[in-house]
């Protein structure tokens, strides 16, 4: 449950970071999210995967370590995540900052309003910015 103590608007957008060598695959997302492909709620996670992929595609790719310190979104991430972004760039991973909106559909609203982190051997997603 999110409790916002100051001004509340009807819509919002939040930032997330995606760090990986390659683009996220459906099977990887399902596995890391902990949901079976035959789950009754699989359609929701299919939609979340599609939204996540779209927002990664539309996101800003950081190519230099210095970019992490200068990006306008840096205040949305913890020092640990910023360090991880720098390390990702050093390692040759693609570091992408994307945004979710609460206005468009259930899948994106869920991704926008849920504080979460997903880590697997092949990718890392941090969306701790999702506080309301």
């Amino acid at each position: 449950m999110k409790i916002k103590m100051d001004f509340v608007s009807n819509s919002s957008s939040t930032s997330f970071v995606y760090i990986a060598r390659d683009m996220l695959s459906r099977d990887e997302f399902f596995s890391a999210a902990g949901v079976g492909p035959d789950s009754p709620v699989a359609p929701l996670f299919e939609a979340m995967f599609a939204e996540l992929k779209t927002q990664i595609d539309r996101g800003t790719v950081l190519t230099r370590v210095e970019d992490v310190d200068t990006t306008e979104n840096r205040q949305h991430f913890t020092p640990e995540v910023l360090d991880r972004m720098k390390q990702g760039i050093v390692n040759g991973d693609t570091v992408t900052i994307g945004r979710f909106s609460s206005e468009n559909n259930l899948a994106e609203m869920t991704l926008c309003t849920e504080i979460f982190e997903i880590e697997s051997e092949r990718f890392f997603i941090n969306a701790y910015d999702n506080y309301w």
Partner: protein
Amino acid sequence: MNDRFLVLPVRRIPPLGEFLHALKIKPTGLAAQLFTGVYNQLFVWSDDLRAQYDQYYCVEYPTLAAYLELTREVYLDPAELEKTHILAVESLGGVLEEAYDDNVWDTVVACIRNLEDGHED
């Protein structure tokens, strides 16, 4: 209680692990995080109207049905009235959000019904 709520009569409240397992969700991860929230909305933060009736209102209203109809405008079939818990679920949000046609309310309720049927067998 707010004006808007949904009623979920159930014979038993499943443990969280059983609920997640029925949805084919592992105990950790984003899916478990989301659907633990759903579980809490349905079974932890809801009001049990039968329990309230038995504890506080059975003197005032002759039957549970009368209590539900007169105070909540809830009309249930006799089979639903017999269930152990009559849960009033408020503040549906997240993946249960009514504003979205593809919310998972029906899917989750169907899963709960399957669990009830399986437990009776």
